[in-house]
């Protein structure tokens, strides 16, 4: 259901509002901070502001209450201008307990606003957060504006008429806080009320209690009980292209893109998956899309997940599997079989911090080597990457196209940040999509009715043959095979020829992908900042600011990691210097150096947190100094 936006041109509440505001909600992992953030995001989108979010939560589902490691945070950057990152430092921090304050206040801008629930600053909770004194009562928070009041007590008061137990009543705290935030940013409460009524349709008392808490938080702001410290702030809607919009996370976009890609190929989709953070959401989403020709299979392990997908591709469907780093490692041998048998397959890797179990809920880009090189033998396959949640939709379609048109597995790289983060997304017009219908061999393609399953076309692509087709019976497998016939053959000349043919096919894809464009700036110059994946936002903003300051710097963002766009080498040679910011220790930088003998310089960060704009700005300064 679409909601009507405020009339453009209606007078703003404030006259000197900032272009953008960063708010961080932080609380216990059981406080519902992700939910609060998600609903605030929706409200922001409905207000017509551009936005980007960064959910940051612990790996534990319900970490011990009040502990420092159990803090869950949700940051949103929104404004009346183009927003591409979740923001460097928050302007507002909502801290639901001492641990949330302690772990997040350091990031807050000087002069920023702290809203704290003083009701949670008990001796016990202060001890758990390793505070020796109550920070709300000494002057340790002096460089920020502090607004502390007993949100717990106010919430309990507001939901009293509904007769909830103390524990249940306190769970409405997040709605009270959201109500206050909605007041602060001049937001309409109705969409939230509708959402609560829907969510608690089976338990109307809980719906009413939550709505009461939401209204009470809002009224608390409205009635100026907060002593004039906070002013209502209205950020104008950002001018956007006309059309229908929604918010979308990367996991949603990948799921929708896969369904769209399969439709454009004219194929049913088979998804084999195994639960793993942060990739499981794709399995969950697709499991609810059966009417779009989707079959999902939760396999016994990562290997069975990919093997079943390859089996489905062999039988004529579009096989898809998805995982994160450790799971992708387990799939390696089967990926080799998909390369060897030349069957279409899409593999989504929602990267997380590694190695091993690493940082399951934190973001990183350290699986690039694994994607490009991580298999036994000479085993090339295309690799594509998504730059943002919305972009993941287009990239998923591209992955399907490459898989089907070139009979190859394709790796799609996203990461924990893209998977969980949300942004407004203009719903695309499906009539603008270009179909790429899959074709199957129906009749023998060799002399005298012989079937040649590995006879290649001009692009080096073999035919797809569905078992069940009369007269085309043949055998395939992971052993080296003769040219055309596919018969077992591991003679020296054959292995040389087939290895060359597999490589040539994948290299040749470079002629069938768009040329690399310059995202921002000029096609030659002093410095190119080259990125891939979710570093798009901070690189883009940093380059924009540097250019506004008169610096000769351009932004190039690469979608096709393998094979690289045909013109990329020449393009990079047009700059004096190349900087490659990555959330790893320099993997794409190494690929670029190897492929083009270019003196690409790394900017690396592996803290589990995305780059800030300032970090990239500083690196640009350094390169130009």
């Amino acid at each position, binding site marked *: 259901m679409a909601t009507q936006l405020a009339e453009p041109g209606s007078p703003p509440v404030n006259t000197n509002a900032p272009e953008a505001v960063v708010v961080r909600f932080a609380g216990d992992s059981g406080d519902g901070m992700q939910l609060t953030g998600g609903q605030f995001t929706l409200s922001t989108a409905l207000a017509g502001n551009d936005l980007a979010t960064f959910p940051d939560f612990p790996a534990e589902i319900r970490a011990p209450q009040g502990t420092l490691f159990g803090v869950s945070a949700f940051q949103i950057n929104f404004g009346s201008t183009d927003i591409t990152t979740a923001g460097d430092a928050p302007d507002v921090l909502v801290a639901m307990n001492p641990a949330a304050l302690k772990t997040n206040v350091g990031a807050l801008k000087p002069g920023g606003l702290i809203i704290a629930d003083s009701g949670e600053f008990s001796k016990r909770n202060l001890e758990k957060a390793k505070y020796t004194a109550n920070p709300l009562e000494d002057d340790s928070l002096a460089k920020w504006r502090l607004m502390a009041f007993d949100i717990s007590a106010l919430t309990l008061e507001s939901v009293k008429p509904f007769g909830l137990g103390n524990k249940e009543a306190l769970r409405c705290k997040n709605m009270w806080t959201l109500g206050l935030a909605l007041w602060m940013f001049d937001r309409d409460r109705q969409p939230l009320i509708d959402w609560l009524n829907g969510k608690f349709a089976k338990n109307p008392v809980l719906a009413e209690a939550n709505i009461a808490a939401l209204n009470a938080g809002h009224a608390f702001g409205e009635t100026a009980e907060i002593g004039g410290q906070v002013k209502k702030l209205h950020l104008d809607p950002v001018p956007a292209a006309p059309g229908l919009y929604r918010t979308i996370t990367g996991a949603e976009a990948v799921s929708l893109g896969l369904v769209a890609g399969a439709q454009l190929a004219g194929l049913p989709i088979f998804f084999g998956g195994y639960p793993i953070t942060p990739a499981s959401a794709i399995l969950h989403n697709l499991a609810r899309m059966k*009417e779009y020709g989707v079959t999902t299979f939760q396999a016994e392990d990562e290997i069975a997940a990919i093997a079943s997908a*390859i089996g489905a591709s062999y039988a004529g469907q579009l096989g898809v599997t998805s995982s994160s780093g450790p799971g992708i490692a387990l799939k390696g*041998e089967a990926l080799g079989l998909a390369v060897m048998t030349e069957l279409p397959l899409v593999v989504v890797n929602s990267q997380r911090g590694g190695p091993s179990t690493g940082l399951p809920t934190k973001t990183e880009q350290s699986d690039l080597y694994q994607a490009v090189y991580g298999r036994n033998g000479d085993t090339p396959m295309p690799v594509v990457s998504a730059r943002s949640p919305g972009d993941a939709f287009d990239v998923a379609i591209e992955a399907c196209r490459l898989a089907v048109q070139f009979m190859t597995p394709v790796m799609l790289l996203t990461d924990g940040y893209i998977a969980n983060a949300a942004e407004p997304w203009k719903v695309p017009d499906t009539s603008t999509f270009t179909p790429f219908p899959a074709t199957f061999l129906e009749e023998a393609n060799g002399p005298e009715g012989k079937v040649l399953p590995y006879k290649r076309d001009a692009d080096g692509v073999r035919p797809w043959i569905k078992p069940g087709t009369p007269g085309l019976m043949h055998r395939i497998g992971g052993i080296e095979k003769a040219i055309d016939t596919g018969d077992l053959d591991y003679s020296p000349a054959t292995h040389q020829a087939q290895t060359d043919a597999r490589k040539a096919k994948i290299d040749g894809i470079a002629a069938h992908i768009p040329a690399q464009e310059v995202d921002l700036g000029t096609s030659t110059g002093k410095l190119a900042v080259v990125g891939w994946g979710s570093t798009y936002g901070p690189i883009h903003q940093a380059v924009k600011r540097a250019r506004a300051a008169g610096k000769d710097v351009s932004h190039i963002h690469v979608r096709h990691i393998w094979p690289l766009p045909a013109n990329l080498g020449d393009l990079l040679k047009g700059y004096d210097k190349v900087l490659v910011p990555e959330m790893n220790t320099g993997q794409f930088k190494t690929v670029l150096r190897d492929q083009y003998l270019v003196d690409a310089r790394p900017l690396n960060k592996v803290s589990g947190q995305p780059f800030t704009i300032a970090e990239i700005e500083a690196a640009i300064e350094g390169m130009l100094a």
Partner: protein
Amino acid sequence: MNDMSPITRTVKDWESDQEVRWCPGCGDYAILKAVQRTMVDLGSDPAKTVFVSGIGCSSRFPYYMASYGFHTIHGRAPAFATGIKLANPELDVWLVTGDGDGMSIGGNHTFHFIRRNINSQIMLFNNEIYGLTKGQYSPTSREGTPSPSTPLGSVDHPALPCAFALGAGARFVARGFDVSKELSGVLKAAHAHRGAAFIEIFQNCIVYNKDRFEDFAAPKGAEDRQLWLVNGQPMLFAKGTRGITLDRASLRLKVVDVVDGDWEAAGVIVHDVTNRSIAHMLVELPFGAFPMALGVIYDDPAPTYEDAVLGQDATARAGKAADLGKLLAKGQTWKVAGEDQGPLSGV
């Protein structure tokens, strides 16, 4: 006019043009012939038949069948077969695996494939040795098996494939051996069973584990050492002079003598392929004290996985159109109006 008479195929029609590359005298040759003969007898269509295998000597099998075939990776054939069956349940899928492939590296997949009950035939060639890697002991090797990796003899207890299959929830379990003339009948029974049919086929590896099964498989004295189970028939062997009974005090199976063919008087039990408890006992009978239980040990069909999955898919799809535009615009949306699009409106 189209010729509507049924196509009669011969064993030749099931032989691929590939040169068979097993060692001369390998038990696999006999199994290959038995399977090809079975396909003829079943009137199967090579175009609708897929042999799926893992890695090992036995897993070369698909190359020699003139049907569709997929030689996959070590131990994972059941997972590939799962995708194949879910994508096209019309295909007649036969899995070929061995004791190393199916019980060791692929034990997990064998377990889940059987548990899910995917309609297909799983032929596990058990030769109690790793042949293709030159003779290491396998999970089914008997204790004390000397091999390159166990020069002083293996020390771990062997796995019993049929007991494993029953433990995984198998609804069909049978046993045969390579040169047995009964093997084709066992395979036909497996094919007739709708669901995952598990067949353990003892197979002679003449290079690394020669004549391992001679104690019961040798033609001489076979009648004393082989208990061929037939549904509805008493469990008799040794030309009807001995039989199997259930000792009701200890709830264990026992060998009894049958005098003058009066098996009822001796208390010999009648084989009921739907009796799961007796099936568990039969697959665990220690050879020596008992004959080797062969034939169809257990056969009691249950709903298949692919029927359940595809049934759920069909229900979820019923009456719904796959409108991509609608899917993309799902959830809470808002409109930004263009200059010439008139006033804003809700959808």
